[in-house]
């Protein structure tokens, strides 16, 4: 067991080393990156990825997937934005509505997968298309900007604690996201829901035959995922200037990729939310950081792909070692 643990810890350690290496490289080669504001703006664009990733960690641990979070996120943000602009919905209600819509779509996914036994890839591909379709029907609807009435919600994600020189300011969004990571890590490891989520991914049949209401917990994994997609919608609306209708496809892939980089097993049954946070940070650093060192954004995709291959290879090697020990 101690040996196992050290291997598992390895992947997270490796990921942290990768993060450190990237930050150091950027620091050395880019004077711009050294400014605190650059780091803040990079973090701004990481929140929705991290939130989506926290959520999708759960379906991925059950050996499923949720492809609908990217388009879903944009769709919820559009609907809520439209309601704010045209129907004067209070912003706070709009934010709750985003989360609620996320939960509903998550429940739909969970129902199709956990109860109707549709393959997760297929079920969420369908809801991905549906949410994208609904998203396309809504007119481009900016949420109130920072200076407009109701724009306070930007503060949650864009503003910082503290006063005085920028270096002492702590981004509120980052604090919030880290708290959520810690909360969900705790949920994963210390609650029935978390334990069963992992067990379902490891051996669903055995869990059913242990007399556990597997359908409920399986559905719940997707509801949690949807809920975080709803939170991501708020974070997304807070940081992008305008939300384009019909977009969002592909955004989920950054989050899912991050989860895998963070050490969730590609076959389910193992994972951690802390790992997810680290994994997503790697993706975010690649996505927003490479331009600082003069590399085209295209390179981000290529390098991310390679990093992902590396991460999955660690998982495969781990399994092979386990199989050998047996």
């Amino acid at each position: 067991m101690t040996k196992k643990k050290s291997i598992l810890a390895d992947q997270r350690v490796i990921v942290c080393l990768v993060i450190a290496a990237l930050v150091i490289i950027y620091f050395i080669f880019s004077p711009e990156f050294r400014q605190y504001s650059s780091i803040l703006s990079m973090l701004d664009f990481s929140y929705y990825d991290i939130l989506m990733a926290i959520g999708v960690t759960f379906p991925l641990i059950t050996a499923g997937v949720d492809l609908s979070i990217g388009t879903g996120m944009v769709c919820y943000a559009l609907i809520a934005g439209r309601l704010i602009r045209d129907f004067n919905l209070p912003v706070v209600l709009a934010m709750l509505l985003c989360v609620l819509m996320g939960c509903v779509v998550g429940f739909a996914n969970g129902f199709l997968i956990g109860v109707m036994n549709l393959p997760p890839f297929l079920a969420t591909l369908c809801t991905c298309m549906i949410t994208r379709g609904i998203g396309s029907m809504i007119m481009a609807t900016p949420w109130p900007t920072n200076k407009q009435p109701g724009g306070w919600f930007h503060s949650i994600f864009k503003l910082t604690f503290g006063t005085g020189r920028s270096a002492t300011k702590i981004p509120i969004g980052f604090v919030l996201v880290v708290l959520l990571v810690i909360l969900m890590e705790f949920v994963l490891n210390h609650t029935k829901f978390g334990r069963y989520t992992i067990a379902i991914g490891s051996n669903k049949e055995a869990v059913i035959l242990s007399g556990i209401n597997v359908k409920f917990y399986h559905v719940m994994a997707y509801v949690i995922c949807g809920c975080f997609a709803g939170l991501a919608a708020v974070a997304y609306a807070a940081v992008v200037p305008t939300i384009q209708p019909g977009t969002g496809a592909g955004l989920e892939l950054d989050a899912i990729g991050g989860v895998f980089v963070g050490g969730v097993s590609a076959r389910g049954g193992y994972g951690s939310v802390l790992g997810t946070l680290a994994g997503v940070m790697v993706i975010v650093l690649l996505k927003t950081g490479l331009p600082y060192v003069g590399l085209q954004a295209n390179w981000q995709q290529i390098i991310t792909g390679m990093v992902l291959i590396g991460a999955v290879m660690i998982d495969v090697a781990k399994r092979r070692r386990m199989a050998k020990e047996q």
Partner: protein
Amino acid sequence: MAATEAILTMENIDKTFPGVHALDHVHFDVRSGEVHALMGENGAGKSTLMKVLTGIYSKDSGTITYEGKEVEYHNTREAQDAGIVIVHQELNMVGDLTVAQNIFIGREFMKGFRIDDKKMIEESRKLFEELKIDINPRDKMSDLTVGKQQMCEIAKAISHQAKVIIFDEPSAALTEKEIEDLFLIIRDLRAKGLAIVYISHRMDEIKVITDRVTVMRDGGYVGTLITKDCTKDDIINMMVGRVIYEEPKTESHVPKDAPVVLKVEHLNAGRMVQDVSFELRKGEILGFSGLMGAGRTETARALFGADPKTGGDIYVNGEKVTINSPQDAVKHGIGYLSEDRKRFGIVVQKTITENSTLASMENYMNGPFIDKAAEKEVTEKYIKELSTKTPGADQLVVNLSGGNQQKVVIAKWLVRNCDILIFDEPTRGIDVGAKNEIYKLMNRLTAEGKSIIMISSEMTEILRMSDRIVIMCEGKKTGELDISEATQEKIMTKATRDIS
């Protein structure tokens, strides 16, 4: 026979894995025209030795001589091409392909760019004729019984022009009748001059089918015996270093007035469970005997709510209950230990603790959170009580041996406080020593007032453990015997009643 030269000799084979001396200068040889048993408890090194032979592992030292030449294979393909083939315990068949496609997988006959299915079917048919097996090469593999699939695996081995065939626990999943068929084939192959290595845990088979026995223990070579000159006890002694066989039960241990804890009436669930009724009494071990496919597992799964029922009433402690899901069954104190532990019983990549409390989480909660201390405490209690061999409660179950994994599943239901336990093939894939422990444990549980339904395909197990025996055949209950009147013959007659 002793005059024949060995076709294959392995000498001083040594292999070390990190932390384990898996093979310690092992000697093994097999001659053309003999069946040579390779025995030993799980983990004794039998499979490792065969994996070294067929190139899955490379040896650290030692020599392998085959047909007079020193050889070393780097993968199974090379070994196959040379004529050394393994028939695996777990069948390596692609369920969705036909029999013929499976047999010639990887070396399909081609007609230009097209696969020549016709020729493959024809060749398969020839193979089956040679082996006197009745299988249609066009059938889908997944439609065949386990026994038939095994026959296909043998046919595949022979189609490689094999000179040495290794059977790795071939009988583990077969019925008595299928085992007989298998033995006919093995004898036939022996007569044709093939060298056969037979790995098995089943003592009876070894006596029946093999010419020599080589025993391994803890990675070391213990010795080789001529089968007809030795007794079961000789072999077992070599395997474990102690005599462990127990006599069959002769009479029921259950008092006449013991209350009925479970009553099943007219249970129906598809073709495999037709109108099955029985009673289980407190402290009783009720054996379910029958051939593979008799509907015993299906009956248990329907009773447990794992598969849908079409009819029937279930009474627990005299009260009628509704069981539509495993959840309901567990609520009424019924626990099910599946025949396929890895698939249905345990979560192998999780710890003993997590598995032990899996069915009774709600008792180990502190508000919304899991009470890990309490969890660990109860797990350690059962590790001690069941004498599970493990370095600790947080050991991953995947690292335990079959017998100890089974104990973890038992612990799961004991933690849940289940009074009715369904053991489906409780000792499948478990070595002799551990088997005995499981038996003792079952006897202890019934002495403590638990009641057990035991499904078993092993006649010796049925006769040794059961107080009463229910016999099934093709989805119907065909008989019920008290242990005092049960004999192998009586059970077999009922188990095959409808089979012509």
